[in-house]
């Protein structure tokens, strides 16, 4: 099936634009960037048709990458139904966002650089999704992290952008540290990193009711997932990541990369299901993140920050889904979220583009009459994220909440309340943006077709994506639990969605001003979190680095060793160079002396063999 073609197309795009982009006209850069991703998407579709119905896993082995002792790691790609969903989401949404970006980045400098990074991101993301062993997954995992860093810091002349890039990279290192420890432990325990072998041998292990090796592995994997997927306690980088261009926020920090943690956890379901403790931790962390981010989202005035916190919150939902054992519901929500969150971000980008860079909601308002298409598509996304019936978000969020109800009712209640909050703050942003009087000074205009066309496609997907029955499709991998619940449980999330929108309407359109008092009370929360981080992690780390790592290890041991070797070499050389007298006869004398010594040595050592 030539699976390798799927990631290689974007990689070629990256090479062409990265190496020659400076000298190429924009049309050609667009052709390479968008064309490569489109080809990749088409190849995915063709492959999936050829492989359907994909009952069993399809694996392709290319070559052995590392062979050392019992460690054998191959470059293997595989496709099963989970991968199929991820591939379609990544390449499908990725293509739309590439098209959009061609319009959005039109006036920006570094056009080719932007697209080469974006293509490189697609390459690594596809490697991550296609990987058939943990190490290859880790390669993709680190690669997307690198691209995320590069693209957050895309406006590298701005201090805040480079700072945000560094923050994202460093926070992710904490998570990756956990992930790599997990990989080491997996190898120690199972003697292999190949998914099939690890999961097959994990299946025969007993469930761990108390903490054991599987629980340790799962918790370390979770540390990795919290870093990449912005969960408590490592979520702080994602809101700052909005310093990057908006298409990047949509593609990397909403639709694809940040869901890698959910994907990885779902992929490792065979490990997680054997460790109830780890599952519960996943669910609780997800729920806490969902609630917390939603509360912070209420107070934000930057339109992208609002959506960033809602991303964190929705990722929390996915983790709840995974944690309560509804893996397929988590992946379903991942997919629908990719549709409506990409749409929200792209729509926000269209608004920002139309207002010449204005991001503050307080300087928007009444934009509906200026940009009708953007507004309508954004409303579609808003309906989906609020969980209004028959939209995509409703279908997936409902599945998660129902599974949560059977796992532990309190998770359901908190989750449902958060659904109301979600509806409220997203619609708060939309109302502030499109209703009321215009409060800014720019001249708003509608975006070009190359930008609103992807919005329209995503709007259709946001509304109708719920009818793609992902859980049913994933049934062979993640069995469904057919259970019934009270009608109240089923319909309450819908009511919360409507309620949230209605409340937002009252607060921000009908009776503006109610919300201000409430807002001021809560805005300290995010700052508080950053301050706790500063005191607990950043300061001690800087102190430790200065005293021990810099002065002790770096200056003392490492520099000492390097400089010492240099100084000794100079000293010995200063003596030895005296041999080089320039007199040929003295050289000859040394040669004779040397050969005599060799002969004597041979004489002492015995006969020559």
């Amino acid at each position, binding site marked *: 099936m030539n699976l390798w073609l799927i990631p290689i197309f974007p990689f070629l795009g990256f090479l062409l634009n990265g190496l020659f982009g400076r000298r190429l006209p924009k049309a050609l850069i667009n052709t390479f960037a968008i064309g490569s991703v489109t080809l990749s998407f088409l190849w995915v579709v063709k492959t999936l048709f050829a492989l359907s119905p994909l009952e069993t896993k399809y694996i392709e082995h290319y070559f052995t990458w590392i062979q050392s002792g019992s460690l054998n790691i191959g470059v293997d790609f595989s496709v099963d139904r989970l991968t199929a969903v991820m591939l379609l989401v990544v390449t499908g949404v990725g293509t739309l966002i590439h098209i959009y970006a061609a319009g959005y980045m039109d006036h920006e400098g570094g056009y080719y650089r932007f697209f080469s990074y974006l293509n490189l991101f697609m390459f690594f993301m596809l490697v991550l999704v296609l990987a058939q062993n943990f190490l290859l997954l880790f390669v993709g995992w680190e690669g997307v992290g690198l691209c995320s860093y590069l693209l957050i810091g895309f406006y590298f002349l701005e201090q805040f952008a480079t700072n945000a890039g560094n923050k994202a990279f460093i926070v992710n290192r904490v998570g990756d540290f956990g992930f790599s420890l997990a990989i080491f432990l997996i190898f120690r325990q199972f003697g292999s990193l190949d998914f099939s072998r690890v999961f097959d041998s994990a299946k025969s292990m007993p469930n761990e009711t108390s903490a054991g090796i599987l629980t340790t592995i799962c918790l370390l994997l979770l540390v990795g997932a919290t870093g990449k997927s912005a969960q408590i306690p490592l979520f702080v980088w994602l809101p700052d990541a909005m310093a990057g261009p908006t298409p990047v926020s949509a593609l990397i920090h909403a639709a694809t990369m940040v869901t890698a943690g959910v994907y990885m956890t779902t992929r490792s379901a065979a490990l997680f299901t054997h460790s109830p403790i780890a599952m519960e931790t996943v669910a609780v962390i997800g729920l806490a993140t969902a609630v917390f981010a939603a509360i912070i989202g209420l107070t934000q005035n930057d339109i992208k920050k609002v959506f960033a916190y809602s991303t964190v919150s929705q990722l929390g939902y996915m983790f709840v889904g995974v944690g309560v054992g509804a893996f397929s519901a988590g992946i379903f929500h991942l997919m629908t979220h990719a549709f409506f969150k990409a749409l929200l971000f792209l729509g926000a980008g269209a608004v920002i583009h139309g207002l010449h860079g204005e991001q503050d909601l307080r300087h928007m308002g009444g934009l509906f009459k200026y940009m009708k298409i953007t507004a309508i598509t954004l409303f579609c996304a808003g309906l989906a994220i609020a969980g209004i019936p028959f939209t995509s978000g409703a279908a997936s969020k409902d599945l998660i909440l129902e599974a949560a109800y059977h796992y532990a009712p309190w998770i359901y209640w908190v989750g449902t309340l958060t659904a109301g909050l979600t509806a409220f703050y997203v619609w708060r942003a939309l109302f502030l943006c499109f209703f009321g009087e215009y409060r800014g000074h720019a001249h708003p205009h509608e975006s070009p077709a190359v930008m609103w066309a992807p919005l329209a496609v995503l709007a259709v997907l946001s509304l109708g994506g719920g009818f793609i029955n992902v859980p049913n499709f994933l049934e062979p991998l993640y069995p469904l639990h057919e259970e019934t619940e009270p009608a109240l449980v089923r319909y309450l999330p819908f009511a919360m969605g409507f309620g949230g929108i209605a409340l937002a309407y009252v607060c921000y359109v009908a009776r503006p001003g109610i919300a201000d008092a409430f807002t001021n009370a809560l805005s300290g929360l995010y700052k508080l979190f950053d301050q706790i981080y500063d005191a607990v992690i950043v300061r001690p780390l800087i102190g430790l680095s200065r005293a021990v790592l810099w002065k002790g290890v770096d200056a003392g041991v490492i520099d000492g060793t390097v400089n010492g070797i240099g100084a000794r070499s100079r000293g010995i050389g200063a003596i030895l160079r005296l041999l080089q007298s*320039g007199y*040929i006869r003295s050289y000859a004398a040394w040669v004779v002396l040397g050969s005599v010594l060799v002969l004597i040595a041979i004489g002492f050592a015995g006969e020559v063999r």
Partner: protein
Amino acid sequence: MQNAVPLSWYLILSAILFGLGVAGFIYRRNIITVFMSIELMLNAVNLSFIAFSYALKRVDGHIFSFFVMVVAAAEAAVGLAIILTVFKNRETLMIDDVSSMKY
């Protein structure tokens, strides 16, 4: 073969020639003489090769000595060219005067 010269005599001769070569190389200052001393050493070695080859009835030593001769010829060509150039530039053949390549 009754009155054949014993192998040890050849080897002693070879050792004497080699020693003369070494001494010449170390004690003589004229570069031409040094060069001849090198040739002397090479031929001393050739002599022992041939002697062994004859005594052991094996052809290897002959082949080796041919190699040595070929290398010596090549070396003589290069060496004499160098000597000529040195003489043109320095107007001397005393090797102790040509000692600028040093620490």
